[in-house]
């Protein structure tokens, strides 16, 4: 196995616009808020050929921003993203077609005024992957591969259900013949029964096409189901990364533990107790992350050391990477 997609010390900041007026106000002694939101901080990871890496975390943890950087949609502020050694972007613009994205909301990610056949075909045609004459045949093939009737090519998105639309979005991404597929919360907006259909489709296609995948989701059970390895993010950093089976069976980082404990389980034997254990406290503002370990204000194991020093992400004996002083 070799790494096909890598992130090297990737950081992404979103800085507020500081106007001339703000600067003058600053000179006059007024407090001007110039704190940048650091959505992703110093993340390094590798996605191996053929594997699925799950990226999991709560909202605002930076998983989507990281995903967009890895997909070549958003340039990193620092560090580098490489797809087989080369950057997927030139300046602010994506150049490669070898990595494609499936977005969260299929209602929003398909242009309502364009027939779905044209939506699927326009990328391949514009990059010369298919001729205009051969496009209908290619569209028909992809529609049937994602489980839709090829005759639907002339329909508009609003004529489909949510699950069918997500199938179209998957067909659009795969018609570009990518090596890597980034799925950004692809089932978050779908109902449970439809979610199962899309997950099954994803598993099928991944196997048939030998795809390498980055699978981003806030849903721990979904990530567990599809991923070989999993990375857990908290406040812009990876706190734990390793084989999915190991991380889920024996989480080391207190945040991973807390997160897994927070999820309500199906209670098949009455519910006198609670099937979950909440993490105390709230996510700190990303504008002013706490010093030391970002999780320390909510962590049951936090000590003076955690408040002072940020733990590095280090490998443990079984290969799992953990960023914690006490794990």
């Amino acid at each position, binding site marked *: 196995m070799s790494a096909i997609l890598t992130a090297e010390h990737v950081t992404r900041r979103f800085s507020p616009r500081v106007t001339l007026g703000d600067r003058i106000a600053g000179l006059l002694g007024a407090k001007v808020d110039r704190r940048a939101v650091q959505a992703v901080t110093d993340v390094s990871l590798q996605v191996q050929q053929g594997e699925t890496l799950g990226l999991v975390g709560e909202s605002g943890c930076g998983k989507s921003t990281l995903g967009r950087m890895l997909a070549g949609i958003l340039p990193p502020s620092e560090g580098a993203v490489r797809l087989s050694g080369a950057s997927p972007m030139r300046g602010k613009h*994506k150049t490669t077609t070898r990595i494609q*994205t499936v977005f969260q909301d299929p209602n929003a990610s398909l242009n309502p005024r364009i027939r779905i056949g044209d939506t699927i075909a326009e990328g391949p045609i514009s990059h010369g992957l298919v001729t205009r004459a051969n496009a209908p045949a290619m569209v028909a093939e992809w529609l049937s591969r994602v489980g839709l009737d090829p005759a639907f090519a002339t329909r508009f998105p609003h004529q489909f259900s949510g699950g069918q639309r997500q199938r179209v979005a998957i067909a659009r991404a795969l018609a570009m013949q990518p090596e890597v597929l980034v799925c950004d919360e692809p089932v978050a907006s779908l109902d449970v029964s439809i979610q199962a259909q899309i997950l099954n489709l994803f598993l099928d296609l991944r196997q048939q096409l030998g795809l390498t995948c980055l699978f981003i989701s806030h849903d721990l059970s979904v990530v567990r189901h599809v991923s070989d390895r999993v990375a857990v993010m908290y406040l812009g950093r990876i706190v734990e990364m390793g084989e999915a089976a190991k991380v889920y069976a024996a989480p080391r980082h207190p945040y991973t533990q807390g997160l897994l404990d927070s999820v309500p389980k199906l209670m098949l034997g009455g519910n006198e107790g609670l099937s979950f254990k909440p993490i105390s406290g709230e996510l700190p503002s990303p504008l002013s992350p706490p010093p030391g370990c970002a999780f320390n204000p909510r962590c049951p194991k936090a000590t003076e050391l955690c408040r002072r020093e940020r733990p590095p992400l280090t490998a443990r004996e079984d290969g799992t990477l953990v960023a914690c002083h006490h794990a």
Partner: protein
Amino acid sequence: MSPALSAFWQEYRENWIAVVALAVVAIIVAAALFAPWIAPQDPYDLANLELANARRPPGFVGSDGYVHWLGTDAQGRDLFSAILYGLRISLQMGIAAGAVALTIGTLLGVLAAHAGGKVEAGIMRLVDLQLSFPAILLALVLVAVLGQGRVPLIIALVTAQYAYFARTAYGAATAERQKDYVEAARATPLPGRRVVFRHILPNCLPPLIVVGTVQVANAIALEATLSFLGLGLPPTEPSLGMLIANGFQYMMSGRTWISVYPGIALIVLIVAINVVGDQLRDQFNPRLRR
């Protein structure tokens, strides 16, 4: 008719007032278009005018045998003919100014939304500044500086109105720009031109159509106002506004028809266009859909 369009028409038809308004607009446009064939008299041909026929009330039979159904004006023009020709000028001005303003404004707005950064800031500052500055004042000053005539008038109207289109196009385009399907198009990646013209621009059209309708009505009203103030077209080509202005001085003496009939024609036209625009606005507004 495509299914989407026919569904749109189905919904439009439910509001009978809007249907009537649309019919009125169509009739007025047709009347203006065929004015030379409908009008009993060519009001621009000064040879036709006789002072003996001036300021006659509706129904007056002129010296040359015409029945002046709506009366005559101070120069002895048949008012019905003058109104038809005046509508022609008003519509020409309104549509020409609206079309030019739509084109310039949309291009500027979409450019600002697409380019971002300094270009965006520069264009939108200018547009905002102009929007806060009343159109009529701008038009007044421009006409005063450029002189009278069709071209100066259109320039004045366009300058006064393009900013509305630019603001609308910019608003719609920035909203579109943030939508997932635009990001999906960029992530493919599709060329920037294709993203703008195939994905962003078509989705900006509904609000622009609404603003376009309303702005044609506004341009007509503005032209009439300028003409009323004596700053519009030369008196040899009387637009509706000027007909009204000319009749103003006779109003106190009871010869109200000289002002009132052109005024009614003007108002019917503008109201009808605005009613159509209102209905389109309601139909395009996704928040009020059920």
